[in-house]
């Protein structure tokens, strides 16, 4: 297979975090306490190798703290690996945890512009899509209110609507499918299926195994910073469930 057919290549990636018990923030603290700075290095991911084909829909599963979200953040280039390298090919959007970096005082509409421009869209492109985005979010009545007045569900709906409508080739989603009411969740899944059909690469971190089973054709089980199992969704989930018991 040609290299270009991989959307994401994770090569020998190790990520370590320095954990401070009492983080020195000022110069004085750094100088005064520079010897007894209690810190330890925690290895969150160790020697990870993953190749994700273009058009694949991949789920990352594992218990809390296993390093799934860190891996996703590495793919987004928000943080960088301690060792190894990550290559992504194509335009990439991500939706991490709650919130996509909105400005609280901006209105929903302004935040759509702001958020979409962070994903690298031009004003023209945003203008062409803004109606779709608002329509999808079902926030028409609130779109000109400041985002700080939104409920967490509305917040997420807006974030999701932007990320899903910017037409990136790679979409990274971290545990947000649980937000929103049933109706909106169904809609998101329908949209994700649609994106899947149109040959987009999707990586999802999620604990809702049933939805993953329906959506993803591949699952990667991460345990204590290592890839424990990688393969067909059903098989990986089955084994994961067994181990959880």
């Amino acid at each position: 297979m040609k290299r270009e057919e991989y959307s994401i290549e994770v090569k020998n990636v190790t990520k370590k975090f320095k954990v401070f018990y009492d983080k020195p923030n000022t110069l004085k603290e750094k100088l005064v306490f520079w010897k007894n700075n209690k810190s330890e290095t925690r290895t969150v991911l160790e020697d990870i190798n993953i190749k994700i084909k273009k058009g694949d829909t991949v789920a990352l599963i594992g218990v809390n703290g296993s390093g799934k979200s860190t891996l996703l953040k590495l793919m987004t280039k928000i943080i960088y690996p301690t060792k190894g390298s990550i290559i992504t090919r194509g335009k990439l959007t991500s939706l991490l945890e709650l919130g996509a970096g909105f400005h609280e005082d901006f209105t929903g509409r302004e935040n759509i512009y702001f958020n979409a421009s962070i994903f690298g869209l031009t004003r023209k492109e945003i203008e062409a899509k803004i109606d779709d985005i608002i329509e999808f979010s079902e926030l028409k009545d609130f779109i000109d209110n400041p985002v700080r007045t939104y409920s967490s569900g509305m917040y997420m709906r807006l974030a999701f609507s932007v990320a899903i409508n910017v037409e990136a080739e790679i979409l990274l989603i971290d545990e947000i499918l649980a937000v929103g009411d049933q109706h909106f969740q169904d809609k998101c899944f329908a949209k994700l299926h649609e994106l899947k059909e149109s040959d987009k690469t999707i990586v999802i971190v999620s604990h809702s195994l049933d939805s993953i089973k329906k959506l993803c054709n591949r699952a990667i089980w991460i345990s204590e910073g290592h890839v424990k199992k990688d393969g067909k969704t059903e098989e990986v989930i089955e084994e994961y469930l067994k181990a959880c018991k």
Partner: protein
Amino acid sequence: MIKNLYNYRELLKSNVKKEIRGKYKGSFLGILWSFINPLLQVAVYAIVFPYIMRVKTENYLQYLIVGIIPWTFFTTVLNQGMITVRMNAGIIKKVYFPREILPISVALSGLVNFFISCIIIVLFCVLGGVGISWHIILLPVFAVIQFFLTLGVVMALSAINIYVKDTEYLINFIVNMLFYATPILYPVTLFPQKIRWVLYANPLTELITAYRDIFMYHQLPALLPTLYLVCITIAVFFIGLLIFRKLEKGFAEEV
């Protein structure tokens, strides 16, 4: 880098707008404060300084304005820029975008403000009888030099400030010193010959002297000081960029 910035031009644009509008948000006069503030500062010095320093400079009011408005450009960008990475911690942790956009938009918003403020300089020059000449076409050249010089400083400091918060307080002190080490309130000739080199080593001296040549004395800025200014600017800009590049990878973990 330039290609990357071009792809993100929309973000740059909206960020610049946010910086220009955001600073005085909620105040009654809003953006007008960016122009009133330096004028008030000028008023204070214009009233006080002739008494305590016995400065005898012709057209002292104009002299002050041409000094203080570029100085305000410099300090505003410095103060806003130093904290810009920290202020945007929210989006830095959530999404990828070229981090340089943050200091660049602060510097750009300063540049836009400066150009608008130059109208005030021109007004004072014309109304005060100093007049204006064709030399004013050189204004954008020096404004752009100042832009890159300030941007270099801001890139370095905004990145360092994430790791060592003291930077902010230390820089406040240095800026205070720098204000008096730049001939804004007084002419260089006020200093004894022996220590004038301190002033000339400060690139802001060359900048402000150049602005005065353009606006007040209707002459071309001297060649050698300008060359010195350009060299320092290039060095500062690239060192700043280098430091920023080196440190930006840890931003999401450190803020």
